[in-house]
């Protein structure tokens, strides 16, 4: 069997992110899928399979079996439809499953979807469902909420490296500023530093404005083999590398809670496979479900040394226009974090960036891009490197 060299992305689509009271899980998933198909120029009959990422539709909406649901709603008939879950990395997992299916030669043209509808349950139930992304039996059951676990990382990072509350807030300010120019973002609004720093504490030292919101949303990609890509578009974006790594489910079992070892391993492996170094990457989407997450990941992917993430923000090096732009979309913080959609939405943003279609949030001349999608508190890390 010949293994195909590269996988192309020929279409992208995304729904509006936010608290979408008037839309159901089906509505938003269909919306993102249709946009991706229209954008690609692929006919419905050419789609051979679907892969859909979702964390917990069963708990958020009472519906499972999303693969078949997506095929049905899209009118795609009898094609196989695979549903995958990896907590907050479910979207990235769907992209990677499709990548492997296409590379293996099993399928040539696939629709990838990521979706989550979180606002149909109350905030308490939503919190509890997010908590099961950690080790429920040995963390959540003792009252350690998901924000509290990220607070564990933040507190320790501050203790060991002198990271400050100002640093936690600077990520919010940067990402909201970027999202001002993202028409799909939940919060298209800048927020001043002092407002972030005075926002309510939810789990010290994490404040409400250090945390991604509860969101509804979906995103989609049309992916195909390199040989087929030129049939559909003149501007295919290629997946140069796709990697995935695991770590202990519970944060307390990690070697070092200030480092996401899974992100270190998967990002190094991705750069090696793509034949690139970190300095070759022009734009990043890093998983900032809490702002400390972005700080830790800038260190773990190698933009800066361990402990230096705060200083990187002080120097403005992760802003659009600087050397390592991180989260031009607004990230999870400001674009919104419909859990299963996030990993796909990161890729959608990077495709816009590489095509030069990101308008006012465009990183000029971007040629290579990296997405890091994290599940739980770092138990899963999925990295994609894209290039044009």
């Amino acid at each position: 069997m010949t293994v195909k060299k590269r996988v192309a992305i020929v279409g992208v689509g995304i729904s509006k992110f936010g608290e979408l009271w008037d839309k159901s899980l089906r509505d938003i998933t269909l919306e993102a899928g249709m946009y991706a198909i229209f954008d690609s120029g692929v006919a419905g009959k050419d789609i051979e399979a679907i892969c859909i990422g979702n964390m917990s539709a069963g708990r958020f909406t009472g519906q499972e079996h999303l693969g078949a649901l997506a095929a049905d709603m899209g009118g795609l008939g009898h094609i196989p439809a695979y549903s995958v879950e990896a907590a907050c990395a479910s979207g990235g997992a769907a992209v990677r499953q499709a990548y492997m299916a296409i590379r293996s030669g099993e399928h040539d043209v696939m629709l990838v979807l990521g979706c989550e509808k979180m606002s149909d349950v109350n905030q308490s139930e939503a919190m509890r469902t997010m908590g099961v992304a950690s080790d429920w039996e040995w963390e959540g059951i003792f009252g350690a909420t998901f924000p509290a676990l990220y607070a564990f990382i933040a507190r320790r990072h501050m203790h060991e490296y002198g990271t400050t509350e100002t640093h936690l807030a600077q990520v919010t300010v940067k990402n909201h500023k970027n999202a001002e120019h993202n028409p799909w973002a939940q919060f298209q609004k800048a927020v001043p530093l002092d407002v972030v720093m005075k926002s309510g504490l939810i789990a010290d030292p994490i404040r409400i404005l250090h945390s991604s919101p509860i969101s509804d949303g979906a995103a989609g990609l049309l992916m195909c083999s390199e040989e087929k890509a030129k049939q559909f578009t003149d501007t295919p974006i290629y997946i140069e590398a796709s990697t995935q790594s695991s770590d202990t489910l519970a944060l307390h079992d990690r070697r070092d809670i200030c480092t996401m070892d899974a992100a270190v391993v998967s990002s190094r492996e991705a750069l090696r496979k793509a034949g690139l170094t970190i300095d070759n990457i022009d734009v990043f989407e890093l998983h900032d479900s809490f702002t400390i997450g972005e700080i830790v990941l800038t260190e773990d992917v190698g933009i800066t040394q361990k402990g230096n993430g705060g200083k990187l923000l002080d120097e403005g090096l992760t802003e659009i226009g600087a050397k390592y732009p991180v989260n031009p979309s607004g990230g999870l913080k400001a674009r919104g974090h419909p859990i299963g959609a996030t990993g796909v939405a990161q890729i959608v943003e990077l495709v816009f960036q590489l095509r030069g279609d990101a308008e006012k949030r465009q990183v000029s001349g971007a040629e290579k891009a990296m997405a890091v999608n994290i599940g739980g508190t770092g138990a899963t890390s999925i990295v994609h490197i894209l290039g044009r």
Partner: protein
Amino acid sequence: MAEHGVAQIWRKIPSMYNVIGNHCTTCDTFYFPPRPVCPKCRRKGHLEDHKFKGLGIVHTFSIVRQAPDDFKTQAPYVVAQVQLDEGPRLTTQIVNCEVTDVYIGMRVRVCFRKITEFGHAGLILYGFKFEPTMKVTGHPDR
């Protein structure tokens, strides 16, 4: 919710009440919570039950102010990772002190408490929390 099932809680009573984990005699590593397989040695591992002394230090912590329903009446409360003297870390609440008194490096010991109750007339969950050690009890500073 499945995570509130009686059997699911009952199975964990030895570990929840007495901080019983295990120890791999092949690589001399202690585990809490107990593991079904030693992840370092896998099939070469040999695990025996181990009752921890219940002494450790606060590795990191947070004050939970936005609490889930089952913990609403306790908020604000401190959750922490405690590094046990034998090596492993666990996640637990810190009690018997002001929430603002907890710090990284604080010496703590295990105590037995009600963790929560699952709704009115629901299952009551008991287990370990940690509290500051007191010099008078003669607990070593380490």
